[in-house]
């Protein structure tokens, strides 16, 4: 169970994430995108989901990642991600509720290049009862 006291907390990412052309190419290849000068619109999930897992499964937060399904997802893209971007991240636990025994948690991911916000995304994650 998620610790309800964690709702509202924001966690700064530990690492600066440098985006490589190779990882953009790999993601684009899956969907048949030939324009690899920018990352596909959903590419950032590669960064955010890993970050969410490391935060939400901390012992003091306590989410059970093994019974997780993805409920919904939203992206706001202020500019495209490109190869060579060095991004800092933060993740915020925005909402938490229990419905029919399922835990439903909404987490926001913000990606920055220096002071510039590049992207915000919201993931609703459901831990099935």
């Amino acid at each position, binding site marked *: 169970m998620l610790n309800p006291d964690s709702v509202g907390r924001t966690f700064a990412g530990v690492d600066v994430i440098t985006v490589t052309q190779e990882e953009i190419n790999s*993601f684009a290849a899956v969907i048949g995108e030939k*324009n690899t000068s*920018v990352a*596909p*619109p959903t590419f950032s*999930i*590669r960064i955010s*989901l890993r970050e969410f897992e490391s935060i939400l499964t901390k012992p003091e937060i306590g989410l059970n990642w093994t019974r997780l399904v993805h409920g919904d997802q939203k992206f706001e893209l202020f500019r*495209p991600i490109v190869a060579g971007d060095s991004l800092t991240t933060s993740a915020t636990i925005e909402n938490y509720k229990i419905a029919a025994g399922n835990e439903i948690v909404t987490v926001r991911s913000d990606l920055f290049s220096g002071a510039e916000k590049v992207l915000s995304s919201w993931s609703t994650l459901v831990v099935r009862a």
Partner: protein
Amino acid sequence: MIEVGATIPSHQFDINRALLKQYADASGDQNPIHQDEAFAKSVGLPDVIAHGMLTMALAGKYISDWAGGPQNVKEFSARFTKPVIVPEGKSVDLTVSATVIEVTGAGVRLEISATSAGVKVLGMAKAFVEQGN
């Protein structure tokens, strides 16, 4: 001139187990429910299912193509209402279409439909794109 109510021709993507493995590697999401049939069934799923985010990535490709490139997609959201079920040795469809629901000076808002085997797999799917088209 793009008007509210205009429909965008549908496109069919094909999804198979190999694509799920490719997406798992590209996205870093190695959850076994997307690769291991025995595991998927052990947690109550009917079979291996596609990553919801793969479905969304493919719908994003459809939107990017219409918008004139991935850089023109400014907002994109969807709910994962039903799983895309991917049996061994088979290819299943993901059929995507869209309707223009708003036109502003800044761009166009689309409502997106995505089905697999006739079942709606994305709900409340919308995108806002700048008009590169």
